[in-house]
């Protein structure tokens, strides 16, 4: 970028955001700016509003107050379909009551890209296969999703998200059901997507992985308080202890910050 270029609108922007659910304010006056290429981790104790925040940032629920802009526009200024081509949401729970093949499940991500009367074409199928390959389950493409393990289903859901090819990924506990190796692989995958110009917001439970993979962090304390900023500034032992209600100590191992409950 040459110095004369105007700074592009942030990928995701929130101003004076307040969330109200279950009869209480989960957070007030939250501001965030996520540029393309950045990862943001959302942390907080159970019931502190992480999922509510993620759904609000996805435009699937109205904020109690404040503004959200995706690539410079509010959610009401775009059709749901146009929005779906820009941002994808990985729900916390993957409901699977009907059988379908893994490749069909991944193709669901192509929905906003395929016209109402059209069928998925060769290109869509190639994209879905590539997405399955990126999460390492292309060999299961013709298996029934109902026959898969929890971790494999989680990776199918992530593949569907990749097939959606959004600019912004919103992930609600993306590491659910995944063992250590795939936890790291999936986080590295989203880091790589961010390097290629995507933005990532992820609800995580593991403070150490958040500290290692996120540029920014939001810490909800469950009492209406919220901290947002650079991950290394937000993820401080005192602040984490205050939010989670348990003391922690910080150490450095191999150049990574590590938090250990006391």
């Amino acid at each position: 970028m040459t110095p004369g270029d105007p700074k592009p609108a942030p990928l995701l922007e929130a101003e004076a955001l307040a969330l109200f659910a279950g009869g209480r304010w989960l957070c007030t006056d939250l501001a965030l700016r996520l540029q393309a290429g950045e990862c943001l981790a959302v942390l907080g104790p159970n019931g502190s509003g992480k999922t509510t925040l993620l759904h609000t940032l996805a435009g699937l629920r109205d904020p109690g107050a404040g503004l959200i802009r995706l690539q410079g526009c509010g959610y009401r200024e775009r059709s749901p379909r146009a929005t779906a081509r820009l941002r994808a949401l990985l729900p916390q729970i993957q409901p699977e009551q009907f059988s379908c093949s893994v490749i069909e499940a991944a193709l669901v991500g192509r929905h906003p890209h395929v016209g109402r009367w059209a069928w998925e074409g060769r290109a869509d199928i190639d994209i879905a296969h590539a997405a399955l390959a990126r999460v390492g389950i292309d060999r299961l493409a013709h298996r029934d999703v109902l026959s898969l393990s929890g971790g494999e289903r989680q990776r199918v859901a992530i593949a569907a998200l990749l097939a959606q090819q959004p600019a912004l990924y919103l992930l609600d506990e993306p590491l659910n059901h995944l063992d250590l190796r795939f936890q790291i692989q999936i986080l590295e995958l989203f880091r790589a997507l961010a390097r290629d110009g995507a933005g990532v917001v992820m609800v995580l439970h593991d403070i150490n992985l958040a500290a290692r993979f996120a540029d920014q962090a939001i810490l909800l304390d469950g009492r209406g308080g919220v901290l947002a900023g650079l991950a290394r500034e937000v993820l401080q032992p005192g602040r984490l202890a205050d939010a989670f209600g348990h003391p922690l100590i910080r150490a450095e191992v191999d150049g990574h910050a590590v938090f250990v409950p006391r």
Partner: protein
Amino acid sequence: MAARPPVVVVLPALLVAGLAALAWALVSGEARADWSSLLAALGGSASFDATVIRELRLPRAVAAYAGGGLLAVAGALMQVLLRNPLADPYVLGVSGGAAVGALGALSIGLSTVVADAAAFTGALAAMLLVFGLARGDGSWTQTRLLLTGVIVAAGCGAVVTLMLSMAHDARVHSMLFWLMGDASAAGRPWPALGLLALAVLACLPLARDLNVLARGDLGARALGVAVDRLRVAIYVLASLLTATAVTMIGTVGFVGLIVPHLVRLAIGNDQRVLLPASALAGGALLVLADTAARLVLSPLQLPVGVLTALIGVPVFLFLLARHYR
């Protein structure tokens, strides 16, 4: 290969099967007709055999075809709407409402035409009642809808039992036959056949949205599907189809539950194929069942609902065992 199921094979094959079932229904019965008299009858011959085929068997067979197709499509829609593979067209009380209407009319000796109108009115009343109660506080969850429907259906069942226990002996038989499902009294089946065709056409542009919805509300909304509007649309559509079918042929069981599953086991869960295939397969199955119901204990005629269960259950269990080996 996975994205495009063999539509070009499955749908024509089911259509041909349906036509073959219809032809069998037309030539079978007390006065057995052969193929040439069938052609003569359809060509407008005025002979006695031709009149039997045209005036008695044809409306009945078409009613069975349309009714089976309507119930199968309604069942497939309900299964997606409630995201519950055990849902059938009757689970939300539409048939209960129809039964209360029809049996109320029959028990006080009104004609079958009035009973049909009362059945349709009762079905729509049940639909609106469940809809209003389930949406009462603005939430619109599957569980709430399902529970409301089940409770309304149970209430209707109690009213039906009450009416049966209080009814005059002479009227109980016609009431029981109505309850078990009976295509013999269906006089004017052609509008129902038209509705079936229109309903399938109306579903097709929504079918991929339904595929997405079947995988969860939240994910569907994130993929740009207008979930609330879609669910209201399929609820109203499925209820109207069920009301039409039940008014015409009574509460025939199993078709709406089993046919979508049979089709799903055979060709997968892509609604774009599942819905038209269910319509064709449901029609064919009910024509076969109705014809068998006329023939097996002839001259005694069985209620077709008994036959749908007797045919459907073993076929379903066979496919299930084969699929989940």
